[in-house]
């Protein structure tokens, strides 16, 4: 008996998913837990595995399609089964996928059901989103290019959104690709196309949509206030140097970062001042007994916050390895949703980017987030004498509905104590 396979919920906040790649095709036999497709959710590219055994009889949405949660994406049954009724039923449901997002979306947003533009080539590595302006992108985000140009772009790994067209109506034609690599288009006979001054329009990715929605919700609904401390990081620097020297003797050698110290220090501070580890709900305040630290990680399309579970119970090296693993998989979009949710407290560290001090937006439903700046060398007064010192500023953003000023201040005082006498970090 054939049945409809629906877009599964692959992340707790997922409302729609974009099918990145089908891994089976119509007619393929499928077993329970076989990989059907990869789906890009608001969080990551997820594996979509089969709950059923049978034959994939019909794929209702191809690669690139955006499908609302629970809407049909495929039909699985027995080989040769007549699925026309199910297809008709699915088509009806599919209409909602086609229409609904457009109705919800702001007017200038592309209909969600249109396939995403081709992903930037892997060759572009970690480069940020294209920034070149192109008049060849029309109002719906479609690039006007000749079929031959599209072929060349595929072959050369070019992002046509970065190229402006000199053909009629801004069409990208072969000569516009001159110089991108040795092509067969007549070279040098045509003046370079003028650089367009039109803004570039980049379609929202699933992740960007989620970031926009969640951070807007946070800033609009959560009453933020901010507490900043400036700690003496000298002992921490010295300890880390010593520790890494010692860890370097191991086989294989190990290493920890300042951020690992911060994570562990925060975890220790939370155990001593636990009321900051809290969530506001309309009915009740929830004080967590677990210390699950969300660590903000920048990825190509935005950021994600994988969670270090029970950080208070983990060693620095464990934390280091776990964060490295999570961040790596976050960049590869391989994180599972459960690895990115249910944190109790967040840390965002921009120190490595040369930021001294900043404030962060709370990651609901958590009650607070710590924004960590870089370690600055500056003169400090020690026992009445001015000596070279190392300082680190940290700003705690608190949800005032659950974390009051005094609670936040008490937590920061504990944190300062841990960081300025850092050997205890090694003890717990």
């Amino acid at each position, binding site marked *: 008996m054939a049945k409809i396979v629906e877009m599964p919920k692959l992340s707790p906040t997922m409302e729609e998913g974009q099918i990145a790649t089908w891994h089976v095709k119509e007619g393929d036999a499928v077993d329970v837990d076989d990989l059907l497709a990869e789906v890009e959710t608001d969080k990551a590219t997820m594996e979509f595995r089969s709950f059923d055994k049978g034959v994939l009889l019909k794929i209702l949405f191809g690669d690139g399609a955006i499908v609302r949660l629970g809407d049909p994406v495929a039909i699985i049954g027995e080989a040769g089964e007549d699925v026309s009724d199910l297809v008709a039923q699915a088509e009806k449901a599919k209409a909602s996928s086609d229409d609904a997002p457009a109705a919800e979306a702001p007017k200038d947003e592309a209909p969600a059901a249109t396939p995403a533009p081709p992903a930037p080539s892997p060759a572009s590595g970690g480069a940020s989103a294209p920034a070149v302006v192109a008049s060849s992108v029309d109002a719906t985000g479609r690039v006007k290019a*000749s*079929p*031959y140009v599209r*072929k060349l772009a595929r072959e050369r790994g070019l992002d046509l959104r970065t190229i402006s067209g*000199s053909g009629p109506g801004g069409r990208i034609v072969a000569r516009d690709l001159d110089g991108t690599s040795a092509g*067969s*288009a*007549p070279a040098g*006979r*045509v003046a370079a196309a003028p650089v367009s001054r039109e803004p570039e329009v980049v379609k929202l990715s699933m992740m960007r949509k989620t970031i926009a929605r969640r951070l807007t919700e946070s800033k609009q609904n959560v009453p933020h206030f901010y507490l900043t401390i400036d700690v003496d990081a000298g002992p921490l620097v010295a300890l880390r140097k010593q520790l890494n020297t010692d860890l370097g003797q191991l086989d294989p050698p190990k290493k920890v970062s300042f951020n690992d110290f911060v994570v562990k220090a925060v975890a220790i501070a939370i155990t001593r001042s636990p009321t900051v580890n809290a969530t506001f709900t309309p009915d009740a305040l929830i004080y967590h007994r677990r210390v699950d630290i969300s660590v903000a990680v920048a990825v190509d399309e935005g950021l994600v916050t994988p969670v270090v579970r029970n950080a208070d119970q983990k060693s620095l090296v464990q934390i280091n390895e776990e964060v490295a693993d999570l961040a790596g998989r976050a960049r590869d979009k391989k994180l599972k949703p459960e690895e990115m949710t249910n944190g109790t407290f967040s840390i965002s560290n921009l120190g490595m980017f040369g930021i001294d001090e900043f404030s962060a937006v709370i990651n609901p439903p958590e009650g607070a987030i710590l924004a960590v700046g870089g370690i600055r060398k500056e003169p400090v007064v020690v026992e009445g004498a001015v000596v070279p010192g190392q300082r680190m500023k940290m700003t705690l953003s608190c949800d005032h509905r659950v974390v009051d000023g005094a609670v936040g201040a008490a937590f920061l005082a504990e944190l300062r104590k841990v960081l300025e006498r850092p050997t205890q970090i090694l003890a717990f």
Partner: protein
Amino acid sequence: MTEMRFREAVRTAIAEEMERDASVLIMGEEVAQYQGAYKVTEGLLDRFGEKRVIDTPIAEAGFAGIGIGAAMVGLRPIVEFMTWNFSAVAFDQILNNAAKLRQMSGGQLEVPIVFRGPNASARQVGSQHSHAMEHFYTHIPGVKVVAPATCADAKGLLKTAIRDDNPVIYLESETLYSLKGDVPDDEDFTVPFGLGRVAREGSDVTIISYSRIVHVALEAAETLAKEGIEAEVIDLRSLRPLDEDLILQSIAKTHRAVIAYEGWPYGGVGAEIVDRIQRMAFDELDAPILRVTTLDYPMPYSAALEQHCIPQAPRIVEAAKKVSYRE
């Protein structure tokens, strides 16, 4: 090789094949005693006699049908239409008999017949005598259609046509008859159907043509070369079957195409080629394919207006520049 005129090349092919095969004969209006309305058959009556070089009354349906009936039972007639315009009154014979007898009979019959004569515009012969008839005939499965542009191909394609066991539509051009060119002397020189020819090599734009317009396309290519555009000119020679490979190879090189030929723009050979290119070489195209055709009017008599309607080199140049984004 012998240098001869186009009409002599056609005549040579007919004569050689009549020598070779006693079942080959030619019939048509004024082909015998008059020596051919355009002197294509000049001298054939003396050489082969009235049994095989046969003057017909003005009855195209009648003599086209007699040719088909004779072919059906083993002869290999060449039926000359004084011009292809007059084939319209024999259209039923070609469409319903020549093209279909084999299929309707489940493959029992063969119809080895050649219909030939001058096609398309001449000089100021008015609307009823200027038709490009290939657009009607290429539509029909069961016939083959060829249209030489050179003297050598005139001979080689006609010999292939006469030896073919299927009905063949062989299109000449009144304004090509006096063209001179080298023609192989070999009595077994034939040009296979379905193979086009690169009349001029180029890298920037492909101009696809056949019959007389090949020469107009070559003229256009010279003008384009002066402006830095190297056009490749393809002479199709055979319209059905069509040399898809040659067209696609050229498109893969130039990524743009202009198709130039006589005949109205609605449908026709050019539209067919456009369809094949977009289907089979979609990813090679850098510009929409353009056609340069006879304008969409019955042919006017006025010399000025006639020239205005027929495809001319400047229109081909303009189209080639347009697809090259060089307007």
